[in-house]
């Protein structure tokens, strides 16, 4: 029984970040990279993966050292850990592709102050064992990357008629240039948030309708 409960708890730690507590669409965190780097699917996915790597490494490390870090210095220690992993990711991305590093620009360094990472460190990793913290980070990272990809894909498709650089829409399609500009990020995010809000409301109403129907 206890094992089943633990497995279900672990699964919940993983799944909640992808959908129910999605960092972008539900918690509305990390808006700076979300809006700025989601102009193409490639950039969005690369930023999602880079942030995900830092989130995973930071959650695992912080959970490991949580008993040795007094609460007075915990935030400073977490920032130190996060900044170190971001620096490592910065070098790794440069080693993979200079063009990608150039495209992500200042936003790689800004992963340090992405509130999703410090938020998960403080709210989850500092209070839970390594296994659960890793699952939490994986879920949140996947949720963040998925959200960025949703934005990037729509913006690239409508703004350039391509997906991952490959032409998808017919040549006669007139590109909506505004979609790859910063304002396009706001429009797309608003549309996705609207969709999520509508879906949540619909889901919340369903049990009420069923209950009312049953009462009759």
């Amino acid at each position, binding site marked *: 029984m206890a094992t089943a409960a633990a497995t279900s708890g672990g699964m919940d730690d993983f799944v909640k970040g992808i959908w129910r507590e999605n960092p972008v669409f539900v918690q509305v965190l990390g808006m700076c990279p979300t809006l*700025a*780097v989601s102009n193409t699917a490639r950039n969005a996915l690369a930023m999602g993966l880079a942030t995900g790597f830092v989130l995973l490494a930071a959650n695992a490390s912080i959970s490991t*050292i949580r008993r*040795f*870090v*007094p609460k*007075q*210095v915990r935030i*400073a*220690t977490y920032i*130190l*850990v996060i*900044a*170190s*992993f971001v*620096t*490592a990711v910065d*070098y*790794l991305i*440069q*080693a993979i*592709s*200079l063009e990608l590093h*150039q495209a992500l*620009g*200042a*936003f790689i*360094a800004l992963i340090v102050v992405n509130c999703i990472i410090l938020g998960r460190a403080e709210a989850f990793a500092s209070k839970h064992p390594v296994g659960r913290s890793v699952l939490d980070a994986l879920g949140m990272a996947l949720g963040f990357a998925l959200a960025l990809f949703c934005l990037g894909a729509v913006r690239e498709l409508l703004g350039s008629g391509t997906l991952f650089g490959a032409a998808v829409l017919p040549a006669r399609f007139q590109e909506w240039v505004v979609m790859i*500009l*910063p304002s396009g990020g706001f429009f797309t995010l608003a549309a996705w948030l609207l969709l999520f809000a509508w879906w949540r409301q619909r889901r919340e109403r369903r049990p009420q309708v069923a209950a009312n129907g049953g009462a009759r």
Partner: protein
Amino acid sequence: MSAPGASSVWPMYRAMVGVGALCGLLIVSVYQATRPRIERLREEALQRAILEVVPGASSSRTFVAAADGTLSPAPPGARGGRRLHAAYGPDGALVGVALEAAGMGYQDTIRLIWGYSPEAQTAVGLKVLESKETPGLGDKILFDPAFLDNFRALDLKLAGETLVHPPVAVKHGEKREAWQVDGITGATISSKAVAKIVGESAADWAPRVRARRAELEERE
């Protein structure tokens, strides 16, 4: 007897110093492991950029400037130092030089390469190699075609050992002279920074290129 509170302070020191040491180890290890590949990729990107900023170039040769101003061919594989890249056309004639330059932008150092024609005494092309300018605003210096067009015929004439008109960035739409750089709206500081970097690099290199042109014209 230990000082009051010493026992509660020690875990804080231990946590901060211990985590700091581990983080330092991580950063230095990753830096060491990735450095050779990053340098190779940078060198390849630089070689591509040389041919891009000097129109008509099909090959190049790198020279290193000594402290006394003399230029000597860079040994193969040599990196760093003050370098000049002479660019040659398909017929082997010198078509221009590509110069690496760097300076402070709005956020961080902007590293760029620009082409100079000793014949016309103008800039002939520019490519930003590295910058951390504000995304959506300052980073337009990387790709804004109208801004980059400024450096296709930017007047850098010499009077003696100095430039007649060091390039200056002006507000968008107010460019009247060939030595002015039409700035980007919303990226004034970045535009000015690029104009200043090119101006300083030109003031430093243009007299030297003129003096050593015969050496540069020798392809090998």
